[in-house]
């Protein structure tokens, strides 16, 4: 219960950083933090106390593993997060080449 709340606090920090900061790199950092918190929340939901990692070996029955389904889904989500970060960094670099600034207020003003 307290772990869930701490995880959601981390998510709130990320969303707040995404909403309030004017710097584009800070916005990417905020989105990254929110994504990490969400991934962690799913894995927390699938944890079974006393469970083992879901790899079959001798002496373990099917009841002794943690839930493998959130792990499989989050494995996909982590890789997609990397792709999103790379795309946002590329767009940020291109904006910096054109406007010489990371500040979104400046970029909006220079558009004319």
């Amino acid at each position, binding site marked *: 219960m307290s772990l869930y709340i701490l995880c959601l606090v981390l998510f*709130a920090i990320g969303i707040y950083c995404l909403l309030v900061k004017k710097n584009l790199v800070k916005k990417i950092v905020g989105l990254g933090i929110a994504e990490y918190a969400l991934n*962690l929340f799913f894995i927390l939901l699938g944890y079974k106390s006393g469970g083992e990692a879901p790899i079959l070996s001798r002496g373990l029955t099917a009841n002794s593993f943690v839930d493998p389904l959130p792990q*499989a889904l989050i494995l996909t989500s982590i890789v997609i997060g990397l792709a999103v970060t790379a795309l946002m960094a590329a767009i940020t670099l291109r904006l910096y080449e054109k406007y010489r600034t990371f500040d979104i207020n400046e970029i909006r003003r220079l558009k004319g």
Partner: protein
Amino acid sequence: MIELHVVLILMIICAIVAMEIKDLLSSVIALGAVGIGLTVEFLLLRAPDLAITQLVVEILSVIILIRATVGVKVPQENIKMRLGYFIFALVFVAVFLFFSKRAVAQLPSFGDPMMKIGSLYNSLALSKAGAANIVSSVILDFRAYDTLGEATVLFTAVIGVLTVLRASGRKK
């Protein structure tokens, strides 16, 4: 599970540092610290595949963001924390935590998952998919179409990066 709390509080402190520090390079490195903390959490929560993937992805994303920020002269503007922002932050965090507390109360408690489909995968992985690693059997056999969609998203993102960053065909 006190170690989970300790690492998670460390991650929250690193996230606040990454949000509030002036220097962009330091901010990116603090984001890397949050990611390494997440790797440790995955190891503690018995998800070794995720820990390996998260470590690699974290290193790659820090390298990409350092490429985006290195050599950039950011003027040292002293942004004053305006009162409106502070009130907005307080209201936002209060509303979010209020609703999340009510939502979390409906969830199964920590350490006791529902596992309606997960137990099915656990018992069928060896006989149906023939894989010792159950997570691999889920992403590559039971839910292979999800992985196909993931590959499509990755391909689209790579095309987007190449389109944005290509040097030829750009107006001078």
